[in-house]
Each structure stands twice: as structure tokens, then as C-alpha cells.
């Protein structure tokens, strides 16, 4: 898994609420058997018309906006548990998603793929949208160690929560499998006690 410590980047604003994972990656693209290449179809049906041409109105097709941070409306990632949504976001090149609220399963999936979900207050989220609207090149700093997100130009910052275990994993690029396997003895003891 990719390591994450600190990132400064411009951001892509997606001010839609309740973005579900069916929008992030539609079900018809879930037929792959590897994790690669999902970025191509990230937000497919918002990004492209049915004939395959670009939907110029969608923010991802607006060349003004770019960056490794996706700033999204409330309740991001609800619906289906498909980890393909996190893979698509990661594969497209995002390292951070900022929202005022995340659905549980998406949040976990993102963390398991080195994508940091940063939950901020609705007011701070609005401030981010406002600043990006004023200047598409607005730089945002995300510091995992300090658990702080900052608008570089104004200095307006906000703290965010992450549990210590996951923080350590992200900073070091560890994942849960190794940790779980290292507990096999305890797991077997649990099984024996239960039987």
C-alpha cells in the first residue's frame, strides 16, 4: 500500500451530496478480476455521454480543475460496498477525498488503499468550495501526522479525526492482512475456547 504523510495540491470540487458508489464506478465495470484500470471509468456516467463523448459540464472534464484532492459533498461513498470505487479514485490519481461525511464502508475501503478520507465540518467544506471557485489553483495542504487540513493561501485550517492504528498504517504503508496473520496464535486459541 502507498504511504501517506503530507500532501499539498490543488483540488477537484464535486459539490454533489450523497454520491453513491454506483456513480463512482457503475456496476457494469465490476467484471474485472484485477484491481487495475478502474480510473478510466471513474464517474463514468457523469463524465461521458452514452455515445462515449465527454460531458463538458462535468467538473472532471473542466481543464481548469485538477489535483490529487477530491472535495465532495456530504455523505460521500454511500451505497454498495464495492471496493472498486476506492480503486477507481486511487487509480485516477486522487490521494485524498474531503467531505463533511463519509459512508462507513467506503471510508474503510479508501483507507485500505492508501486514499485518505478527510472529514471536515460542513462550514469548512463550504469554505473549501468557495475558495476553489474563486481560484481553481487553490492549494490545500493535508498533513496526516498533524491531522490537519489547511488552505495554504488563507491559512484557514481544520483538524480531522483518524484512529491511531489506521494512521500508523497509512504513514508506514502497512495493511491489515500482515497484522491479522501475526495474531494467528490468538485466533486459534479463540477458536479452541469457543469449540
Amino acid at each position, binding site marked *: 500500500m502507498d504511504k501517506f504523510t503530507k500532501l499539498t495540491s490543488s483540488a477537484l470540487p464535486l459539490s*454533489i*451530496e450523497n454520491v453513491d458508489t454506483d456513480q463512482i464506478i457503475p456496476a457494469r465495470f465490476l*467484471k474485472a478480476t484485477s484491481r487495475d484500470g478502474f480510473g478510466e471509468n471513474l464517474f463514468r456516467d457523469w463524465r461521458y455521454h*452514452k455515445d462515449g463523448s465527454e460531458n463538458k459540464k462535468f467538473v472532471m472534464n473542466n481543464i481548469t480543475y485538477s489535483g490529487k484532492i477530491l472535495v465532495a459533498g456530504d455523505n460521500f461513498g454511500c451505497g454498495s460496498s464495492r471496493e472498486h470505487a476506492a480503486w477507481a479514485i486511487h487509480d485516477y490519481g486522487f490521494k485524498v477525498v474531503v467531505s463533511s*461525511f463519509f459512508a*462507513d464502508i467506503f471510508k474503510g475501503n479508501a483507507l485500505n488503499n492508501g486514499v485518505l478520507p478527510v472529514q471536515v465540518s460542513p462550514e469548512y467544506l463550504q469554505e473549501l468550495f468557495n475558495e476553489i471557485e474563486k481560484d481553481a489553483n487553490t492549494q490545500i495542504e493535508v498533513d496526516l501526522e498533524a491531522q490537519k487540513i489547511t488552505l495554504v493561501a488563507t491559512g484557514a485550517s481544520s483538524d480531522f479525526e483518524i484512529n491511531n492504528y489506521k494512521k500508523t498504517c497509512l504513514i508506514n504503508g502497512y495493511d491489515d*492482512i500482515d497484522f491479522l496473520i501475526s495474531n*494467528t496464535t490468538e485466533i486459534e486459541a479463540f477458536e479452541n475456547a469457543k469449540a
Partner: protein
Amino acid sequence: MKKTLFDKVWDAHVVKEIEDGPQILYIDKHLIHEVTSPQAFGELEQRGVPVFRPDQIVATADHNTPTEDQHLPVKDVLSRNQLEQLTKNCNKNNITLYGLGHKYNGIVHVMAPELGITQPGMTMVCGDSHTSTHGAFGTIAFGIGTSQVAQVFASQCLLLQKPKSLRVNVNGKLKPGVLPKDVILYVISKLGTNAGTGYFCEYAGNVFEDMSMEGRMTVCNMSIEMGARGGMIAPDETTFEYVKGREFAPKGEDFDKKEAYWKTLPTDEGAVFDKEYHFDAADIEPMITYGTNPGMGIKISENIPVEHNASFEKSLAYMNFKKGQSLINQEINYVFIGSCTNSRIEDFRIAANYIKGKKKADNVTAWFVPGSQQVAQQIVEEGLKEVFENAGFKLRQPGCSACLAMNDDKIPEGEYCVSTSNRNFEGRQGQGARTILASPLVAAATAVEGKIIDITKQLN
């Protein structure tokens, strides 16, 4: 300390607590299907790690499978590849697979309960958010991502923070024609799609106590649509009766021992929940959705609310509905009865009961898709198939089908579908398709009338 049903089951499965971090939770049963498992098998292979407890895993093919001509090779190359991959992975790792054509094949959340794989007090996971369905048995069951599927493969455990607790109480007498689907659509319409995020939900009150297991599964199935990872209902006589005698249920003395334990699971009197809601059953009516998330629901006789915000307006624009509009008499060309929410025998009984002696509307294309081979069989045995055929409906073969349109069962662009499934997201049933969620009764009535009718007028 007074404990909730959730506490009791959770605490009995904690292997270890990590200081200032998550807990290691033991998983009793792991259900898998073709779509969210291949990358997890790949991950293990890449690491050279074996599957830790293959006998605690059960696999089925459901998401991708065609609902016609299942005896023939699957036409779609990518779907076929994914299905073949599942077979290979299961063979290689000694995992039981109920693939296409097997008498136990079906939607994962339909076949596991009906085989007695799902039992009270268990922890169960599957790479599918509707795993919450199994909570109907007093089981902690929830959907996981593919990385977590790999974790369970490798260790039969997951690293999790214990969620907060939420209880939804519905008491009183339901009106005629108000089904479990209406109850949960009503609750979600009141609480919204994220009220349950971070929580595990318990459904309590006489409305749930009086429900069949099928009804309870419909309710728990949609817990995730209000954001809750899972939903549970206390196991009782209805639960024990349902489980008893099923293929993989405990037998004889073993059953009695288990049953005695299951009886200790219901929430203690006076246990405290982090959040609690109360609803009156008499306020609930047959429900439909008008928007693009399951929280956007109204009583069938109500008008679409008038709200002023961009997301709401985007949603109505997608559906081509107007604020304040009634959906009564809205012409509907597609009807889907199926999905892990409503494809059990009871759902088809309800549909058949309404349809008996009537005819399918000419403008309607209807897909009736049983949740499993066993449900399909039962539909035939109970004479429901004949009722459907006499009315001009054709039964299809089991699978997830038009709920997520991964196979050929896609609703065309711009068309409305009254669907008994669980999600009305944009494009969920096909690119540009417009989904209206409803109960099997409302779906059956729509299929007969070719439009949405105020079913309450026929019931009262």
C-alpha cells in the same frame, strides 16, 4: 451492565483488543460471490498466504448470472470469465460453491438463510453491502470491501472499531397492504440515508415481532440504505422455527443447546442505545420513491415534496419529475420483482395473490426473478407459476438480475421501472434508467395496470 443484542454477539467474537485502536473480530461465516472475490484471492496468492478456514466459507454465483438459459454457456465474455474464476478459486482452495445450475444456487442473501447457513448469534460477512439481511436472525452481518474479504480469507478475522448502537422501534397495527418493504422505506424516508452511518441498528417493537423471517430479512436488508452497516432483530420462536430442520442447521441435541443460547441474546431490559427512534405503525402506508436515493420516499398517495437544493433538483431532473407532483397514474413500462430485498417465496405469494384472475398490462415488460433455485421450485409447487403465466407473466431464473443490471436485464434509458429492489441510484438498473422502489404488492399492481395506482383505495 445491561447489554444489547448487538453487544452480546459482538463481545462473544472479540479475539483481542488493540490499545487505542480497533478490535480483532472473529467471523463465523464468510459468504462470497463472483464480483468482489477475485482480487482477494489474487491478493492471497500474491502473498503466498493460504485460505485459513475454507470450511467456513460458502460461495454462490449471483451478481453476473443470466436469468434465462442458465444451462447454456454465459454469453457475456467478461461475466463468464468472472464466473469461471470463482469456480477455479473455490476448487483450488476447497471452498464449497453453489454455482449456476446447482440446486442450492441463488442470491447470496436468499440462499444462505434458506439453507440454514445463517444462524442467530453468528458473525457473518460478505463482499456485498446487503449482507445486513442476515441480521434478521439476530446475527451480526455486514458488507465488507475486497481488501477485507482477503483479510477474512487469511485470518477468519477483521480489524474493526465497534460501531455505536441505534434502535428503531415501530409499534402498533399496520394498515392493510402495508408490507415490511413499506415499513423500511418509511423509516428511511424519515431518517435519511446517513442517519445510521457509524451505527449498528436493532429493529424492535411488535411490528417486527409479528413479521415472518422473510419480512424481517427485507427490513434488515435495507439497513445499509440508511447508512447502518447492519440491522438486527432479536431471535425468537419465529426465528427458531425457521432455522430448525434446514439443511445446515444444527440438529437434535445440538439444536436444543444452540437454541438455549440464542434465547439469551435479546437486548436486556434497560440497556441503553446511543440513538433511538420511535414510529407508530398506523402512520405507515404503501410507499414509493421518487428520487435517486432510497431516502427519497413518499406514501403512494402523497405528492413529491418541494425542496430547494441543488442535489434534490438534480435528482428530480434525472427522474424527470416535478416538485409537488403526484405519481398516481404515472405510466410505467417496466416492473421488476426480485433482488435480495424481495425475491423470497412470500414476495411471490403476495404478487400472485394480487395478480390472480387479472392480466398483465400490454405496455409492461415484467421481470419476475426468484431469489434462488429453492424459491423457484416452491413457486412451481405452490401453483404460483401458473397464476403468473395465466396473467401473461413469465418467470425467470434466479440471480441479482435487474437490481444492478450486471447481466442482460437492463432497463432502457429514460424508462421508469417500479422495482422491489433496494437502490434507486442513477443508472442502477441500466444507464439512464429511472427506478421507483416499492413493495411486491405495489409492483404487482403496477404490472397489471401499466401505471402507478393508489393501491390504498383497493385495500380500504
